[in-house]
């Protein structure tokens, strides 16, 4: 049976919110369905959380779980906003998906908005799962959740800028390799589980300017020590966001 179809022209763009929601939904589904992506965004952070909280592998200040949980939250943010987004967008460019979407009524700013919503949705899911596991392990978060949210948003912007900078200029395979490498290096250096206080002073000065260090440091001072808004960390993240998003918007190649 062939259904009746009327090809008579009736052109028109859908309202922007509908387009953005449709695209964001498609992106969230793609992430949740992708095994490698889930490994990166959920399984590795939870293994790190459980492993480093349970086993006395490293000397950390204070209760182990209270030290590790904020670091793992920062790791999860980085995995979605940076690694996942860089690889996903790099391959979208390579497969011509960005080009094809460019021929639809969804504008480029609409597409960016959809990607932002998708990243934040995945982050909310990650935070819910990681917080549940950490609470079950006896985590006692302190501080104002609003300050934590501000840090997470600024961190998301900084990591997204880095991701788009990479995905918009490198070949997809190079982005894949580089994004994983950067993830590993930042996981090791950024205070996620290894306190930066254990590094020699010269290295520490540099490491503290990295976005991952600012995010782990900021989240830890709020959630573990109940401090107010960590202005320095927030400024580091906002500076990264401004520079990377600014450069990415000039260098991004859609094809």
């Amino acid at each position, binding site marked *: 049976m062939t259904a009746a179809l009327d090809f008579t*022209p009736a052109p028109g763009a859908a309202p922007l919110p*509908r387009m953005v929601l449709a695209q964001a939904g498609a992106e969230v589904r793609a992430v949740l369905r992708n095994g490698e992506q889930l490994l990166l965004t959920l399984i590795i952070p939870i293994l790190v959380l459980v492993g480093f909280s349970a086993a006395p592998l490293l000397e950390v200040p204070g209760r182990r779980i209270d030290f590790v949980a904020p670091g793992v939250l920062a790791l999860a943010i980085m995995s979605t906003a940076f690694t996942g987004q860089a690889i996903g967008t790099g391959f979208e460019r390579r497969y011509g*998906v960005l080009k*094809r979407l460019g*021929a639809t009524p969804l504008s480029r700013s609409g597409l960016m908005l959809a990607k932002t919503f998708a990243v934040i949705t995945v982050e909310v899911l990650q935070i819910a799962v990681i917080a549940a596991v950490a609470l079950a392990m006896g985590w006692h978060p302190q501080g104002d959740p609003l300050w934590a949210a501000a840090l997470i948003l600024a961190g998301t912007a900084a990591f997204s800028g880095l991701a788009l900078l990479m995905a918009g200029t490198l070949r997809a395979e190079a982005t894949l390799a580089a994004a994983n490498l950067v993830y590993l290096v930042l996981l090791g250096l950024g205070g996620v589980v290894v306190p930066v206080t254990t590094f020699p002073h010269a290295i520490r000065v540099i490491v503290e300017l990295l976005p991952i260090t600012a995010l782990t440091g900021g989240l830890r001072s709020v959630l573990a020590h109940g401090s107010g808004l960590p202005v320095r960390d927030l400024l580091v993240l906002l500076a990264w966001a401004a520079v990377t998003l600014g450069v990415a918007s000039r260098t991004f190649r859609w094809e």
Partner: protein
Amino acid sequence: MDSPAVALTDLVKRYGRTVAIDGLTLSAGRGAVTAILGPNGAGKTSTVEICEGFRKADGGTVRVLGLDPIRQATELKPRVGVMLQSGGVPPAVRAGEWLRLVSRFHAHPLDPGALLERLGLAEHARTPYRRLSGGQQQRLSLAAAVVGRPELVFLDEPTAGLDPQARHACWEVVHELRARGVSTVLTTHHMDEAEKLADKVVIIDRGTVVAQGTPRSLTGAERQLRFRARPGLDLDELLTALPTGSAAKESPSGHYVIEGHVGPELLGTVTAWCAAEGVTADDLSVERRTLEDVFLELTGRELR
């Protein structure tokens, strides 16, 4: 009055020092099917992608539905459907989801399920794009080009790699779009496709238009006599027996084509000459020139 679906004037496109499009002028009428033919590298895809707003022309003017495809993109994009030559779909996305997504960018889309069914993809609605066959991928891209009920569609080699059934399904969609007043601009390598589908054929080569018109006006009323015989017949001698203005050629070896005033008299002369030479002419036929003949005459036979 309606502006043409596409109007290109003195279009120029360079990639570095290579001139891909060199002063190309063409127009595609509203509600008509326009086929752009040309050998590989002739500039077909560059031309179409400039119309789609993917590339910026280095010279000349581009108007699509009367609009500039880059400066007036927001206004134009909802009205135009695009089928890329390949790709454009995430490998992991399911066929039905992709079509539904594209449909949700439009105000009055076709029903994605009905469209999948129409193109024989209903049972693959849940199949990821990368697991579809080449022909199924092409049909999904065609579906995505028309789902938004556009006024104008660009199809870049829509039937490349399709089996005969899928080609016919694609042709039927183009016929139906035309019947509903949609303008279509397509590129193709297939002469029969252009002959069957197009109201207007534009042959381009080395970035410029070498011929355009209806398929009929390009092939002309002229007829040809074709036959097969042993290779190496002395055609110059044959020509002396034929009326002036006739032409004869052997291409490929053993296949002969006589052009000119092909009537009973000429037919008689050729068969008599063959008999005198002791040659049997096989598969003797009288045909109209095909678009392929015209195409090869204009663009040459050498491989590129």
